């Protein structure tokens, strides 16, 4: 028997023009003019005991709503949800803590809501306190906690007793790196003991490390189910297709202003990043072979054309940059109209993190000579570590330790 099963589950929010309409609807008065927002539609899902499932998808895809339905906090508009096991859930980054109470009191409260006896709770308290590692704050009212500290307590409470089903919505990204690490260790431990895990996360590395299945939600439906790597690749391509068809995006998602300059004698028409499988991606693994493809259109006759690219890490420091003048591959005396495709093949010898790529078309080794088209933040991609030794920094040196004893 599956531990969680959903049969054609749908969730719709109905917008009532006034309370009066809603009130009548409780008593079966139908109104066809109501505005309905479909959050989830016809979800069929069956999860087996011990599975670790990641729900991925863009904001508004219905991930959190689905978890709330499974947790029993929301009720489905139609369909059937069966859950055969005790659930422990961190939804919307919390466990219903009251900020006037200390972590100690909130722990007691939340665990007693979850149905544990006072003896069990007293027994578990030292464990919660030790795991959350917030020291003397444990007895202070939670209103003076940082969000990270609240998260620590929530995670400690949610996992102190082994739940049959553990639901975590986004929560893991709040804590600091140390606590994230600690939480993942705890999750793995629970997994070994048979806990079924359901998480929503944007941390692709974590998903690929922990989960055995990923479910991609898009527009309220299940778009793809499969091994995490496969689903993540598909998801990346979906995002890539969305964001790179129109390259003239001025305002970046993170609020940065993309600067585009140049006299447009030559234009960058398309920039794409392909992973080792030849799939368009916004994420590369450390050491993976990748191709950056730049399509250029020559608009006016040009004496010399140089194409350069530059990688910057998150804070804007340059990690690497070169151009076709340095590599002695500059093109001379170009006529119009003409299309040129540059393919930059490289090994991703970068540390984990987010990198941006600037592309430039110039008339020489530096853009001071002549600047045709220059795009900052033309492309942003992430590097994750899947199979390499763990390391820090932005360079992958792949050193070898030779150790001699005695």
């Amino acid at each position, binding site marked *: 028997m599956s531990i969680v099963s959903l049969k054609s589950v749908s969730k719709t*929010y109905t917008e009532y023009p006034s*309370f009066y309409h*809603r*009130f009548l609807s*409780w*008593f079966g008065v139908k109104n066809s003019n109501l505005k309905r927002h479909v959050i989830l539609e016809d979800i069929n899902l069956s999860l087996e005991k011990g599975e670790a499932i990641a729900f991925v998808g863009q904001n508004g895809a219905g991930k959190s709503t689905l978890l709330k339905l499974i*947790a*029993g*906090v*929301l*009720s489905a*508009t139609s369909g059937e949800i069966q859950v055969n096991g005790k*659930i422990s*859930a961190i*939804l*919307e980054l*919390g*466990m*219903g*803590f*009251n900020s*006037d*109470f200390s972590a100690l*009191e909130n722990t*007691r*409260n*939340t665990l*007693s*809501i*979850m*149905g*544990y*006896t*006072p003896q069990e709770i007293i027994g578990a308290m030292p464990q919660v306190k030790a795991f959350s590692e917030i020291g003397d704050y444990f007895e202070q009212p939670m209103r003076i906690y940082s969000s990270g500290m609240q998260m620590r307590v929530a995670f400690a409470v949610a996992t102190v007793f082994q739940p049959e089903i553990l639901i975590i919505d986004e929560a893991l990204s709040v804590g600091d790196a140390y606590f994230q690490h600690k939480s993942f260790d705890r999750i793995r431990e629970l997994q070994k003991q048979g806990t079924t895990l359901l998480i929503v996360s944007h941390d692709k590395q974590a998903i690929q490390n922990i989960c055995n299945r990923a479910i991609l939600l898009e527009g309220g439906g299940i778009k793809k189910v499969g091994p995490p790597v496969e689903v993540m690749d598909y998801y990346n391509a979906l995002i890539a297709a969305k964001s790179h068809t129109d390259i003239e995006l001025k305002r970046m998602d993170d609020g940065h202003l993309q600067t585009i300059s140049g006299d447009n004698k030559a234009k960058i028409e398309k920039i794409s990043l392909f992973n080792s499988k030849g799939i368009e991606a916004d994420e590369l693994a450390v050491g993976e072979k990748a191709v950056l493809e730049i399509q250029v259109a020559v608009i006016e006759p040009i004496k010399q054309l140089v194409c350069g690219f530059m990688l910057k890490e998150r804070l804007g420091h340059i990690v690497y940059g070169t151009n076709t003048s340095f590599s002695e591959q500059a093109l001379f005396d170009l006529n119009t109209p003409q299309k040129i495709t540059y393919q930059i093949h490289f090994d991703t010898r970068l540390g984990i993190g987010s990198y941006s790529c600037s592309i430039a078309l110039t008339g020489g080794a530096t853009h001071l000579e002549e600047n045709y088209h220059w795009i900052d933040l033309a492309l942003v991609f992430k590097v994750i570590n899947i199979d390499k030794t763990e390391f820090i920094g932005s360079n992958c040196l792949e050193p070898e330790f030779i150790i001699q004893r005695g």
Partner: protein
Amino acid sequence: MRIIKNKVQQTWQNRFFIITSIKMDFKSRFSRSLFGSVWAILNPLVMVAIYAFILSQIMRAKLPGIESAYAYPIYLISGIIGWTLFTEVISRGLMVFIENGHYLKKLPFPRSNLIFVLLGASLINSLILILAAVGIFLSLGFIPNSSLIWLIPLQILTALFALGIGISCGVLNVFVRDVGQVVPIILQLLFWLTPIVYTINIIPEDLQYLLKLNPVFSIVDMYHNILAFKIAPSLQDLGVLAIMALVSNLLGFMLYQKAYKDIVEEL
């Protein structure tokens, strides 16, 4: 029958939550106060003191049936005990879903627990008030008799009657917050339409029946009988109250059943 059995079982399993919550309810109300639960008793007693002081001139005459020099304060306290329980349950019911929104939205648990916490906390508050009142009566040389035992069914039925009203208002309050403003005003009106600070005989006799239409009238009347007049309430009045409690709860829970899907979404 099975539904009731399951419900009882579920409640028993959740007894620790209910007990802890009642404790926390007291704690949270006084979490940043120096005198803690003293305020719970002080509030109604100050009210009694004020009315007793201001109205003692008008109410100087001995009340027929109460053989004490302090007849008026005793009468006043008796009525206020019933009134306080009635209004406390309604006020809590009014806010029960909104105040517990953080739990409702984030934790799966049987929602009926909230009702038991509400009833438990209100009844305990009322019990404290009754004990304080009896203490005051004794210090005034007024000794209640065995009819006090009738307070048990009366307290329970009053709380249940108010619960049904409170839940109905609480459900509506989630969607239309005006309800939260209107109910206290209605309660205030009702307070003056009920003989609590005055006695029924100051109303012209041919208008008295109007006051008796007020459902709280018979409740407060029974509190007067038990505490001030030391006589058992009529079984007929108790029976009527039981029926009113049943009807108000049927109404409240029907409304809740219809609305519960929408409540969490709206919070």
